Structures are given as structure tokens and as C-alpha cells.
């Protein structure tokens, strides 16, 4: 640990963090798969963010659909049209917004719950920790898909429901990992010192433990986004999504309902699936790269 000198401790801390970020990036760069994942994500993020400019929200409109229903790919519609005659390429780009957003929100929710539970359980120990970890263990063995379907059925059909259903069913893994890390951090001497100097529970958890588990939380978030995107598609495909919102899973559900499978209208079915797989893969690759930078012993990318 750095000794405190004349410079303000805060500035020092920032400097230290900047250094470690630079170190992190240097190591991350050596993981080619991770870079590939990152580049893919950047591309999709760009597409999603610029969608209002490139395709415009009009692409969702059914009344102003430019084509005939279920046209096969052509110069005008590179990926054909959907059952309303909307351009599938446009919908695919527009759907990225929803799929990425839901994946991101659900993962953040899941990791936030997990981090909170993990840190408190690691910090407070005793009866609280026992009870909390029992609950965590219990959630860990719940069949997540079954639970998420049940939750989505119980609540009204909206994006919020999907985010919630994914978030509250996937946090236990994070909680366990964060707790283990918290225990390790808290066994270090400087926590002892902080306590002796009168640091309260809140201070220790937010100022000392949280920054130290942050990298782990980051890796975990990346990995969970990947699952959350798949989960969103799954729930939408099972008809539990909001039918008026265009998402990749929703497009697949539309395709199946319209009869694209038996009619062999592959252009309706193939692109959304590929988009889901590519983005999920990209997040997984990033997550693995982050993980192996943080914990080289894991050997994932060797």
C-alpha cells in the first residue's frame, strides 16, 4: 500500500487507479479474442446509438411500412421485409437498441444486487451472513429459466418486467464471488488500520472494499450481459415480451408466428439469431479477457 505523503490521498488514489487502468489495458490488448469482442461491441453500440439518425424511429411504424409483407431480400430491402412490410435490416438495427439496453440494465441490476449482497455478507459475517448466504445458495439452485418465466407471467408484459425477471434470477453467482473477494480484502491489514482510525461500516464497505471488488464486478457484468441478452431473446421468444417493442427475440417470435419456418423464409429468421449470437459472443470474449487479465492463473485465454 502507498504511504501517505504530502500529496492529497485522494489525488494519489486517483493516480494509482489511472496507473492500474493503463496496466490493465496493456494486458488486455494482448488478448486478441478480447479485442475482437470489444471491437464488435463498439460496432454494435455505434449502430444502436446512431439508429435514430440512420434508420430513424419510423422503421418501427406498421402504417408507414414501405414494402409488401414478407418480401425476400432485394436491393431496396437487403434483408427482406417482415410480416408488416417493414425493412428487416432497419428493424435489426433498431432492435439492437432494445436488446442491448435490456441486456445492460438486467446485468447491472443483477450485478448490483449481487455486489450488495456479497459485500454486506462478507463484511458483517455472523448470523446475517449465514442467513443471506443460505438464501443465495438457495437462489443458486433455482431453475432460473423456470423462475424467470414465472415472474414474467406474474407481471405485466413490458421491458421492465423482463429486466426484473432476469435481474432477480441471476445475481447469486456474483454475490458468491464478491463475498469471497470481500473476505480476502477485509483480511488485509489496512482495513484493520481503517477500523482503528474509526472508519464505520459504511466507510469501509464503500471506500475500501468496493473499489477492490470493482474489477471483479466489471468482469462479472460483461459475462452476465451476454446471458441477459440471450435471456431477453428467450423470454421474448416465449411470447413474454411486449409485442409492440422491436427486439431481436421479438423478431424471432414474430417470424415463427408468421410461419417463416415452414415457408422457408430464412431472411426473417436468420439475421436476428446471428445478431444475438454475435453480441453474446462478443460480451463473453470481453468478459473472459478481463477475467484472465485480473486472474492470470485461470488460464482461460492461454
Amino acid at each position: 500500500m502507498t504511504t501517505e505523503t504530502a500529496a492529497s490521498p485522494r489525488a494519489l488514489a486517483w493516480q494509482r487507479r489511472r496507473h492500474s487502468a493503463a496496466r490493465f489495458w496493456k494486458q488486455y490488448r494482448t488478448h486478441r479474442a478480447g479485442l475482437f469482442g470489444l471491437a464488435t461491441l463498439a460496432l454494435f453500440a455505434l449502430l444502436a446509438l446512431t439508429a435514430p439518425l440512420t434508420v430513424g424511429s419510423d422503421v418501427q411504424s406498421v402504417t408507414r411500412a414501405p414494402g409488401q409483407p414478407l418480401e425476400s431480400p432485394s436491393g431496396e430491402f437487403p434483408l427482406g421485409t417482415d410480416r408488416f412490410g417493414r425493412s428487416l435490416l432497419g428493424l435489426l438495427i433498431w432492435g439492437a437498441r432494445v436488446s442491448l439496453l435490456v441486456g445492460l440494465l438486467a446485468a447491472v441490476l443483477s450485478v448490483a444486487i449481487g455486489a450488495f449482497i456479497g459485500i454486506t455478507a462478507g463484511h458483517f459475517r455472523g448470523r446475517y451472513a449465514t442467513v443471506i448466504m443460505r438464501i443465495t445458495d438457495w437462489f443458486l439452485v433455482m431453475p432460473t429459466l423456470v423462475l424467470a418465466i414465472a415472474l414474467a407471467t406474474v407481471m405485466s408484459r413490458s421491458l421492465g418486467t423482463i429486466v426484473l425477471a432476469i435481474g432477480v434470477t441471476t445475481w447469486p453467482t456474483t454475490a458468491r464471488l464478491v463475498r469471497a473477494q470481500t473476505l480476502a480484502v477485509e483480511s488485509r491489514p489496512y482495513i484493520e488500520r481503517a477500523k482503528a482510525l474509526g472508519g464505520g461500516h459504511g466507510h469501509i464497505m464503500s471506500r475500501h472494499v468496493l473499489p477492490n471488488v470493482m474489477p471483479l464486478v466489471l468482469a462479472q457484468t460483461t459475462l452476465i450481459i451476454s446471458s441477459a441478452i440471450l435471456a431477453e431473446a428467450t423470454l421474448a421468444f416465449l411470447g413474454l415480451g411486449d409485442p409492440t417493442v422491436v427486439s431481436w427475440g421479438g423478431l424471432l417470435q414474430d417470424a415463427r408466428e408468421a410461419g417463416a419456418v415452414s415457408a422457408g423464409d430464412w431472411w426473417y429468421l436468420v439475421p436476428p439469431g446471428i445478431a444475438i449470437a454475435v453480441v453474446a459472443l462478443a460480451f463473453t470474449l470481453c468478459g473472459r479477457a478481463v477475467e484472465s487479465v485480473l486472474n492470470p492463473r485461470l488460464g482461460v485465454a492461454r
Partner: protein
Amino acid sequence: MSTHVHGRGPKGPRSRPRTVRLVATAGAAALVFSAGLATPLDPAPRQAAAADGDKVLTVAVAQSVDSLSPFLASRLLSTSIHRLTYEYLTNYDPKDAHAVPGLATKWESSPDKLTWTYTIRSNSKWSDGQRATAEDAAWTFTKMMTDEGAATANGSFVANFEKVTAPSPTQLVIKLKKPQATMTALDVPIVPKHVWEKVGDFSEFNNDKKFPIVGNGPFVLTDYKADSYVRLKANKGFWRGAPKFDELVFRYYKDQDAAVAALRKGEVSFVAGQPALTPAQAASLKNADDIKVNDAPGRRFYAIATNPGAKARNGQKFGDGHPSLLDQRVRHALFMAVDRKTIIDKVFQGHAVEGQGYIPPRFSQYFFKPSASQELAYDPEQAAALLDRAGYRKNSAGERLGKDGRPITYRVLCHATDPNDKAVGQYLKEWWGKLGIGVRLDCLDNVSDPWLAGTYDLAFDGWSVNPDPDFVLSIHTCAALPATPKDTGATDNFICDKRYDDLYARQLAEYDPAKRAAIVQQMESRLYDLGYMNVMAYPNAVEAYRTDQIKSIRTMPSGAGNIYGQDGYWSWWSAVPADSGGSSDDSSSTGVVIGGAVGAAVLVGAGLFFAMRRRATADDRE
């Protein structure tokens, strides 16, 4: 992810082939386990497989059987099967659906219409050889009257029965408490007394344990496996003549698209149009060889219903429909903003007819077309003006405000399982959005709860209309409202209108068909003006079959009508096999090849385990 797994202790220096062996054994056990499962799955001895040359008609259905007991079944598939396996007292003529003889050869009522006497045919035999008699019918009805469990499915038919007797094997006498219109349309399967009197609890007996099931219809049910198939064999001794196919199989597919794919491949001979095939499916099947798409005028209407303020017969109000919908001008404006032609063109892609009156044009004598002055043609500008006139104006943000000063957003109840609801819902959202009205689509698997509770603003609605429209007319009378908010009434969506009710009473008392039809049209006109039931379309019945397996099959009505879901058993009874016949021959031979391949794949998997295991033990020996 999988990489956090191994937070383990220090590493031991010894090898552990034991582990490998254990994995291998576990794998082998699982293999044996699953292989073992493949064979003795059903302990019941199965009927002899279709002998070579047997003509099998396979129907793909997207609905599962709820119960094989005629006393419990209510799904269309189950009741269709009962129609095929048990003879009812009467049947419907395939041309115009008037009552024709079934188990009863003739029937007459006493002048006061309270006593009905049916003559039971003497040439109908149960499949176990015993003769079907009036005694069986009397026992069936009496059971339903006395045992609540037996009244589950068809209890409404006998609710009004006083007494049912069988003075002789060929005579059945039913005494009523008050006159009943459905006496020649009692859709109640008559079951063999000598079999069913042994049943203990009718509310839990599903009739699916002992096969073949004793019946007297054109087919005999020989085998059933939940969510897989229902097999029926032709009843060679059927009094009307044996069916042309030797076997009839209803095979279950979880969704319609899988069923259509199965038809393309020839796995099945027929795809039930329930739900109707989608435009994409119909279009792709039309181009396929040896497949005929039956695209016939449907008997359904497809409407958008508005909540008229749910209330019970005792005057108690319930539910929370939007108050603005009580204004007729608002309802008209909403419907005027619905472009019916686009719905036909885009959503149904021509497989439907634009909506007019309440009853579909297939029933031409009752079909009603609004006059030019009353017609609510598509005209969004007029609609906006109408809303302005009604006092619902737009605010600066373009939102139309309700009388409470808040922007109007309607909840539209839709069936999550019906793609058309979701598609039309999206159009409504945009069309009404232009009027400044928000739409929230509430798509549910099961809409009956908010529906019965009146907690919706608008809802997608549709009914299949019978040749006699009495039922679909009756569900909009005040008498159909629930007695109290706690009851469930026959009402469709709580409409209660004095003028409509008067007309309803008049048509009931009118015996002259032409005059009655005129009154029915007046009722439709009234319904149209009220704006509570806005018919958008009459969807066609779209179904398809393989012409290389089915040579001909009778539709109902015979001119242009549906095949699946008929009122009688005409379609399956009349179906004539094509000369090339059976569908299952070639698939079973490829089955052998492919099955062999799978077996090989499984063996490779097993081999892998054992290879690893052997290697491990070999290492030990070194």
C-alpha cells in the same frame, strides 16, 4: 462463467484414474438408463400397427386433448373426437346444417313443447357388440342431471330437463321444465351405460386408461398418448356406412408452423385450420406440389369490442372501463380511424373479408350491410372532428384529453396466442396515436379474468357463428349479464340495450324465416350503431391437405366451407384416400437408416468413455 470453478486446496501428487472410471461408469449408466427408457415407455399393449396397405389419415392439430371423457371435455379437438366416436341423438346436415338423424331417427314434441319423444335407431351397435338403445341415452342424460361431476362439460343442455325415460329400447322421452330451443341440437355424446355405470367419480375419470374405448360413432378410439397422438380405427359396422380410411390419427404439434412443415413433408395428411394458417403459410403451401389449400369463407367475425361499463343484472356496476367510451361519438370516432382494408390486405393478406355487420356473409340470409348514411367508413379526419365535437380536444402536446383533463390512454386486451391480435394492435396504436389517443396492448395468455371482471377498455373479440345465430345474438342481451358481479354471465362484453332486447324477443317469437332474418338484420343494424362491437373482418377458414393422400373430403357447408371443426363428422367420415395411399411406408424405412445412425452416434459416445476408461486402466498396469 465456467472459469471460477476451481478454488481448490493444494495439489496432490498422485494420479487418480478412479475418477475417470467413475465418470465413465456414470456415463454408461446414463446411457443404459436412457436407452432403457426408449423402449418400455408405455406398458399398455399397443394395438396392432397399421397393417400394410391400411389407409391412414393423419391430422396435425395444435391443441392438446383436455380430457377424453365426454362429460369433461370442452376443447374443440376433444369434442370433435367425441363426435367421431359417439353417436349423438341428431346431426347437422352438411349442406345447410338443419337437424338430421343421428342415433335418433325421428323426433317430435308435444303441443306444449314440454315433452320430446325420440325414436332411437335399432341398427347402431357399440364396438363391443352390444346394441345401443334408448336406455343408454336416458342413462347418459340422467347421469348429467344427477351427478355434478358429469355435468361439467355439457350440463347446460340438461339444466332444464325434468325427467328422461326410456319406455322401450327404441323410444326416448325427455320432459322439460320449460320449452328449450336446442332440442334438435343436443350436442351430447351418448355413452354405453354398461361401460360407464362402473365409473366412480365422474369429475376425475378421464376415459384414457382402457383401449379401445367402447363407442358407436364412425370411428373407434384405439390409442391415445398425451401431447402426442390420438388414434382412431374405422368402425366397419357404422350404420351410415364405414369411413373410407382405415385409420384416423390426430397428431399434436406445439405450434401451427411445425404442423405446416409436417404437411409439406408428408408426415401428416391434413393441417387443421385452428388457428387458421397464416398468409405466409398459405402462400408457400399453394406453390407446393400435391397440396391443396382450402381457403373458405369463415364462420367467425373478428371485432374490436368496447367496454360499455360492466354491470350486473342487479344494477351493480363493476370493472373500470374508460368513461369516455360511454360516449357513442367516441366509439364511432375510434372505429372510423380503423382502416379495415389495410387489415385485410396486410394482416390477413386477403384471407379475410372486410367487416360489415355482426354476422359473416357466409350466412347470407342474416348478413347485414350498413346503409351509406350509417356506415362508419374509414376517415381519420372525420374521426378527429367527431372527437373534437364530443369535447375531447388535443392539448398542446398533441394528446387528446379526457373529461378529467388527463391524456387518454386505452388498455386494449389482446390474446397473446393470436398473432393477428398483436398485429392489428400495432396498427391501432398508430392509427389512434394520430388521433392523440394512447394505446397500451395488454396481451395475455388468458384474457378471461380481466374480461369477466370488466377491467379493460377495448378488447379483441371474435365468435364462431352457428347456422342459427340465436346464440351469438343472445350474448348481447341484458338477460345475459351476470346476476351479480360475483356470477359469470353468458354476456360477451356487458352490452345491455333496450331496443336490441326488444328486437331479440321479436325474432325469437317469429316463425317465418324471412321475417325473422329481417329482424335479425335490424338487430345487427342497432349493434352497429351502438358501436360496442365493431366488426373489422371475417377471417377465412384456411387449412390445407395433401392431395396425394386425400382424394376428396367434404366441406361444410358443402359449397365452400371448412373441414376441421365442423358441426358433424362429415369431413373425416367422407374422406376418400388417394390411390397412392399410405403416408408412413417410406418414412419408416428412412427411419431405420436414421435410427441406426443415432444408435451409432450414441455408441460412439459410449465408446469414447470406455476408451478413456481402458486407457486409464492400462496406465495403471504400467
